[in-house]
């Protein structure tokens, strides 16, 4: 059999978002929106610190994680410096570095027509993508459904999330 005939299309992606930094959340939002644009179903399940991207008061104020990030040299070309320029990890903890990196990333994202988190949730929800919050993480952080974006489709237990993911051709991705 020709290998290309053997390919089963991806029918649905269920993406678990466990981190709440801007750089932790954006990839999942981009992957979910990209799936919908290809006609693939998409569900997002925000758990642990990922809930930061659903809480109304915080979702548009996510920050780039600069502490403990040994890949900060990637941002150097944005400042007109070579990507090989070292950025020692301790520098990420200096006051204002995270805010500065966040401002830089937000600007670059806007240039690429990537919306801010709140607008991105609206885009995914309007496209038919589903947005869920993890019940356990909600309890841990003492959050109530009314604290979350009105685009959230529900608060699910882990079991309910797996039910939501049922079906051949579904892929579960953890980010």
């Amino acid at each position, binding site marked *: 059999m020709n290998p290309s005939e053997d390919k089963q299309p991806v029918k649905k992606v269920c993406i678990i978002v466990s981190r709440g930094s801007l750089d932790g959340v954006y990839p999942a939002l*981009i992957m979910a*929106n*990209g799936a*919908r*644009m*290809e*006609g693939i179903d998409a569900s997002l399940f925000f758990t642990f610190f990922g809930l930061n991207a659903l809480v109304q008061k915080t979702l548009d104020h996510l920050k780039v994680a600069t502490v403990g990030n040994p890949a900060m040299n990637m941002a150097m070309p944005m400042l007109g410096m070579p990507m090989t320029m070292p950025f020692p990890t301790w520098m990420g903890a200096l006051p204002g570095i995270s805010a500065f990196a966040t401002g830089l990333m937000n600007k670059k994202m806007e240039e*690429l*027509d*990537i*919306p801010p988190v709140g*607008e991105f949730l*609206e*885009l995914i929800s*309007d*496209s*038919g993508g589903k947005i869920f919050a993890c019940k356990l993480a909600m309890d841990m952080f003492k959050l109530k459904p009314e604290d979350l974006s009105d685009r959230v489709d529900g608060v699910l237990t882990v079991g309910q999330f797996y039910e939501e993911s049922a079906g051949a051709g579904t892929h579960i991705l953890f980010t």
Partner: protein
Amino acid sequence: MNKEIAGTTVEVNEEGYLTDMSQWNEAIAAAIASEEGVGPLGDGHWKVIRYLREQQAKGAALTIRSMGKSGIVTTKELYDLFPGGPLKKSSKIAGIPKPVGCI
């Protein structure tokens, strides 16, 4: 490669997108739409198709976000009009290249 669509021979790429948007006409759009399981084409579809062609002629990069903000169509309407790939399918029907962005 050449392909005959709605009685006209047009140049298409391997995915079936017209490579020369000037060879496009409305009958071709209707034929591609039915091949893609879209339509029958109504006013809503035509508004999007005309807008896409205008933007392409201007050289603008098309994204799902810019479409939703165009005032031509909402995100929801776009997905309803062109199910299974709103920007890809509408671009194909409009006779313009497949969008290359990730958004």
